[in-house]
């Protein structure tokens, strides 16, 4: 696993030496900041209205700010994940550096894990921005930290699954744009699949809906750790990385 760590460090270096990481961080920070500001605005207005009407429904920071924001992040993540994964293998194939990796005494699995882990680390850096904002809630309010922690776990698992898919797609082409666009398409599809459950209850519809990565996030967002959803994400991660490994192998046999 030492080799996976070496590769991971190198990938992180590439992310943070080039403008890629900073661009993603800035964009994500701005977008999430806007969401946060909005959610907070609504919350404050609502609170004031309730006071004026003399209603005393309990206001809940977790339910009214954190939960919708977390599901926002899970959707926004879909847009950022292709930008993180598209270069992982496509670039190496294009510049020929894949030959260096493939002829070094390193296992394919170590290369794949290293790259995927680096992508995970970058995504976690994005999430750090949200933590910054949520920090304010803890400073001025009194939210429960446990549902938030479960929410983060869910975000990480969901990202892991999509990043694994993106990593796989990146091995299929030497063109980063194609890798990015295809990953984006798959991510979007995996999001909207859940919508069929709204009007259709047949088995096929339930199967489709089950495949949606977003529906599995709902319970995490609520702060509920459901093993069924965790297993779904872990399965997708495993499958994604497994297919990546097979794809790398076929790369050699076909070339």
């Amino acid at each position, binding site marked *: 696993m030492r*080799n996976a760590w*070496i*590769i991971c460090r*190198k990938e992180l*270096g*590439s992310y943070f*030496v*080039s403008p890629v990481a900073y661009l993603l961080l800035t964009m994500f920070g701005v977008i999430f900041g806007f969401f946060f500001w909005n959610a907070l605005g609504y919350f404050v207005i609502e609170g004031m209205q309730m006071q004026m009407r003399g209603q005393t429904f309990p206001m809940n920071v977790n339910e009214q700010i954190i939960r919708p924001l977390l599901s926002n992040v899970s959707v926004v993540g879909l847009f950022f994940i292709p930008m993180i994964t598209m270069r992982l293998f496509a670039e190496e194939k294009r*510049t*020929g*550096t*894949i*030959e*260096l*990796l*493939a*002829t*070094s*005494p*390193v*296992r394919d699995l170590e290369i794949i894990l290293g790259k995927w882990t680096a992508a995970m680390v970058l995504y976690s850096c994005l999430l750090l921005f949200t933590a910054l904002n949520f920090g304010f809630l803890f400073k001025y309010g009194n939210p429960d930290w446990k549902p938030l922690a479960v929410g983060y776990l869910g975000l990480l698992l969901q990202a892991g699954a999509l990043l694994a898919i993106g990593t796989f797609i990146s091995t299929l082409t030497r063109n980063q744009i194609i890798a990015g666009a295809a990953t984006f398409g798959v991510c979007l599809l995996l999001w909207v699949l859940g919508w069929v459950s709204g009007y259709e209850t047949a088995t096929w519809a339930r199967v489709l809906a089950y495949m949606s990565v977003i529906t599995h996030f709902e319970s995490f967002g609520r702060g509920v750790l459901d093993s069924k959803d965790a297993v779904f994400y872990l399965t997708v991660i495993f499958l994604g990385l497994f297919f990546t490994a097979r794809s790398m192998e076929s790369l*050699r*046999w076909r*070339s």
Partner: protein
Amino acid sequence: MIKVQALTKKYARTVAVDQISFEVAKGQIVGFLGPNGAGKTTTMRMLTCFLPPSAGTATVAGFDVLEQPLEVKRRIGYLPETPPIYPEMETAEYLKFVGKLKGLSGTDLQKRVDYACDRCAVADVKKKLLGKLSKGYRQRVGLAQAIIHNPDVLILDEPTAGLDPKQINETRDLIKGLAGDHTIILSTHILPEVEQTCEQVIIINKGKLVATDSVRNLQARARGAESVLVEIAGRNGNLEAGIVQHKLEQVAGVSRVLSKGKDNGRAVFEVESQKGRFVRGDLARVVVECGWDLNELRPAAMSLEEIFLQLTGSEASAGTEQAVGKREQQ
């Protein structure tokens, strides 16, 4: 050190490498020669475990490329056709990364990085971004990358491609200097390079092995019987070509005289000597004694280039074996 037996690589429709067998002894520099698309790169990729062979076996330092790829990779330094560099990395950073990948660490790593930098003359660009380096420097960084873990075997795919003449010379010297410690296979289609750097040549064409021998033997095989071009002119503008030919044939050691054309008082002959006989002096004497002018006398020996063309040329490819055989008989 390297043993290749009936190595074959088939792609969907084509056979890139067809039943190649050869051996390379420890410490040798071997030139891997062939026209573009002959299968050089494919063979090298199989030796470096980048591509699996379709059939046949290859072993490096006793380890099979299919069975124990990690052991093979540990013992091989590989410079692909385009140096595998990351443009966003600095030279030293990159070499460190590669060193770590190859299993080096700590002070050992630092020492090897310094050594490789010195050896390949890239120490002055240690802190520069690889993307900003010139082609020559990139190539040398690629070479430094290949020797970083002190591998037993170096496999270099066209190490001098795209360099200017000065850089080519430097790179050649560098490769020669590395020969003592490493077994080197280098591919090229530049012939003087092989003549100057390699001890052994493997010529392949269209995926097939055409010849494998030492450079000297190959040249001797082609030159074995020396052949000389003689241009002779008569004094008064008339010359009996038949008489001249007869006289030349009588010189001791001459095996054959071919007329290569004549016009108003001049005649050109190609004179072949028996193996090991040196006839140029005697030829000159005979010509002068007979009262003719000796306009030109030059060896028509084959350079490696001619051998190469002869062996790989399209019209000769069908009869390469005969061509070589014929030369040997002569």
